[in-house]
């Protein structure tokens, strides 16, 4: 069980990862065309954008990443979604903070979970309770 101070720290972290838009935004009454277009821009279309120099490292896939890949492909074979829907959900729909913040396969598995809830294959309550059950099982170990 998280303490009140853990939760407070968590809340600060949530605040700190809001996208830096350089202009404070707070439920604008009016949004002009350039700003509207900026809001609607798909997060994954980053080609040609200015950026700070980054360090990219070669990295082997971890087991959870391979499991995620297989799970998402199997959902495709069963006709539950297709690869383009997966891209739409994992690239467009998550928004900037999640798109830029999560690992590649983290976005896949989150998109898969959201899709299964959206299409009523599982209920959100079922998923929440299952995750809580697994977490408590691990906490006891």
């Amino acid at each position, binding site marked *: 069980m998280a303490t009140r101070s853990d939760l407070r720290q968590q809340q600060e972290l949530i605040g700190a990862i809001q996208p830096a838009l350089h202009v404070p935004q707070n439920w604008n009454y009016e949004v002009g065309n350039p700003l509207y277009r900026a809001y609607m821009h798909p997060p994954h279309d980053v080609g*040609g954008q200015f950026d700070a120099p980054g360090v990219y490292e070669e990295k082997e896939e971890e087991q959870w990443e391979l499991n995620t890949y297989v799970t998402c492909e199997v959902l495709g074979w069963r006709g539950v979604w297709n690869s383009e829907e997966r891209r739409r959900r994992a690239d467009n729909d998550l928004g900037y903070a999640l798109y830029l913040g999560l690992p590649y396969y983290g976005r896949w598995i989150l998109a898969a979970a959201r899709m299964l809830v959206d299409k009523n294959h599982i209920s959100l309550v079922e998923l929440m309770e299952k995750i809580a059950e697994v977490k408590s099982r691990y906490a006891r170990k």
Partner: protein
Amino acid sequence: MPESKPLKQSPSTAGQARFKVGDRVRVKDLPNLFYSRTQMYVRGVVGTIAACTYQDLIPEDEAFNRDGRLEQYYIVRFRQKDLWPEYPFDNDTVQTESPERWLEPADK
């Protein structure tokens, strides 16, 4: 449970390809609404058809699990200098794939 629509085995064809290899085309600037795979940096830029690749599902349909309609895909070649005015080398090019809906004749 809402109906999940698996892809059909043989969707309708898209008919004749509108462009041929060597044609000059401009990438359209259609609205970004919920989904797009057409990069900002090629929009409004004129390039050359490098290959007519294949017919496949319309990406905007497939992304929302709609099937049955096909369109023609192309490889379009752009001069780097046309994409990035400050690019230093005249002969360098970049190729990207585009569905027919996002292209128009460059003389239009």
